[in-house]
């Protein structure tokens, strides 16, 4: 079974189709390119690395957006 076939079946395998689909549909073009055996460009790679670094850095420094903070 190919990965794509597996993904197609996932919503049928779970009653939580919406959450599964939600995650899958958020997959970025770079991941879709993997399925299509396309090439992920140098620029796309750099953008992902930068984004991940920014997210991790913010959490390490405790500099979270307001909507991530637990408030009374």
């Amino acid at each position, binding site marked *: 079974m190919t990965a794509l076939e597996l993904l197609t079946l996932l919503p049928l395998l779970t009653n939580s189709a919406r959450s599964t689909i939600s*995650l899958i549909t958020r997959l970025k073009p770079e*991941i879709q390119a993997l*399925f299509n055996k396309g090439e992920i460009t140098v620029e796309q790679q750099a953008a992902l690395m930068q984004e991940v670094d920014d997210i991790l850095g913010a959490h390490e420094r405790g500099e979270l957006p307001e909507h991530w903070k637990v408030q009374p």
Partner: protein
Amino acid sequence: MKRILTLLAAIALLITIPACGGKLASGGVYADKQTLYVTDQTFESAQDTLDEVFKWEYDNRVALLQVLPELKGKLDKLRLEADAYIRQYSVARKAYLLTPSRDNENALDAVLNELTRLASAAATLKPANQ
């Protein structure tokens, strides 16, 4: 049961994507790190889902407290857990970058699975039409 199946789906995704034969352009920061590329991409997607749900609740808090009073408490729990796991992901990622061993890869995957589970849980709390 629902969460277990979703978690299994996420794990299946992690296992199958690297086998699909996608190509990272040479010279890129992930060129010789396809495993890290896939985990980082999945991490970013899970974080993006969490961020969207947290912001939706924050922006509509007053109204949501009236109609879904238990929602803030559930999401606050996810906020704390997500922050902790993201910090863990950072630690595990650094260890993997330093030593890309199977043990470090497994540790990275374990944290990522937890983040994916949280993202799935958060997504189920947000109505589809919001």
